[in-house]
């Protein structure tokens, strides 16, 4: 069964760095999105 899976690609240090930066950016975007949704919800509730 496991023979059917391709070998995971080996990343160069540069690729590792780029992937880490990208992951951080996605995480940050999600946090910002959560904050915005929270703020909009509060504004709509208070009004």
């Amino acid at each position: 069964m496991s023979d059917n899976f391709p070998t995971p690609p080996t990343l160069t240090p540069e690729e590792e760095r780029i992937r880490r930066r990208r992951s951080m950016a996605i995480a940050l975007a999600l946090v910002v999105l959560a904050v915005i949704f929270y703020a909009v919800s509060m504004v709509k509730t208070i009004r």
Partner: protein
Amino acid sequence: MTAAFDKAIDEDAPAIVAGGDIGDYFQLLKPRVMSLVIFTALVGIVVAPGAIHPVIAAASLLAIAIGAGASGALNMWYDADIDAIMTRTAKRPIPAGRITPQEAFSFGMVLSAGSVLALGVFANWVAAGLLAFTIFFYAVVYSMWLKRLTPQNIVIGGAAGAFPPMIGEAVVTGQIGWAGFVLFTIIFLWTPPHFWALAMVKAEDYKRAGVPMMPNVAGDLSTRRQIMAYTVALALFAFVPVAMGMGGLAYLAVAALGGLGMLGIAWRILKAGDEAASAKAGMQMFGFSILYLFAVFSALLAEHSLGLMWALPRLV
């Protein structure tokens, strides 16, 4: 349409490890276009009859900006083949090989859906529907259909760039109104002189890529005449906000002076004696038209948000 989506599936290079950096993804959003969208949508929000909480306005603007960026990413995905041929676009992330077409397609689709849903939740579903239509219009009607089919591509496709003020107004009022429509028309009439001036300068580039821009299809003289015609229409229509009471004295002054500037450059393009003079006037039009649009929208913004409105008698 089906062929377009097949394209996304067919180009199945082994994209297990995405290669693009954050900056490459940001470039996919066409940040310069996005900034213009944010600005014009903001003016739509400010001139709309009604009030909105600043937090909701800011969140809505962000959703509109991301929607605009998403349509830019979808445009770059579809146009990667011609972008690679044109010198102006060859360094974009897809033709440069930093991002695969699949990544750009997924990125664009996810942001499109996310921005429309977010705007629906933040503001209302009329504004969200308009944003969805704008993304569809730019990515499908303009990029996939009109751009490679007709020299009227940027005239009809220009509507996509003109929708943001209407979305802005809809964010506030929940409907499509006259203020947004007037701002839409100003951008719609502004688009042909702006892009045809660039197309005159980059005619060889477009020819090589097989994009039927007006100078390549109808010729230089016809394009110059049409630039003049649209500029006259724009300069005159720019007074409509004054007649409606939407623009005051400051706007009137900016629209009049800016209109005269646009007409002066359009005249120079029309009367250009040789190719060098034509190219020079074309670049002047490209640059000045950006300044013009920024100035007339800034005047409205200042009048409505800074209390600088010196109202004139309404005619309509």
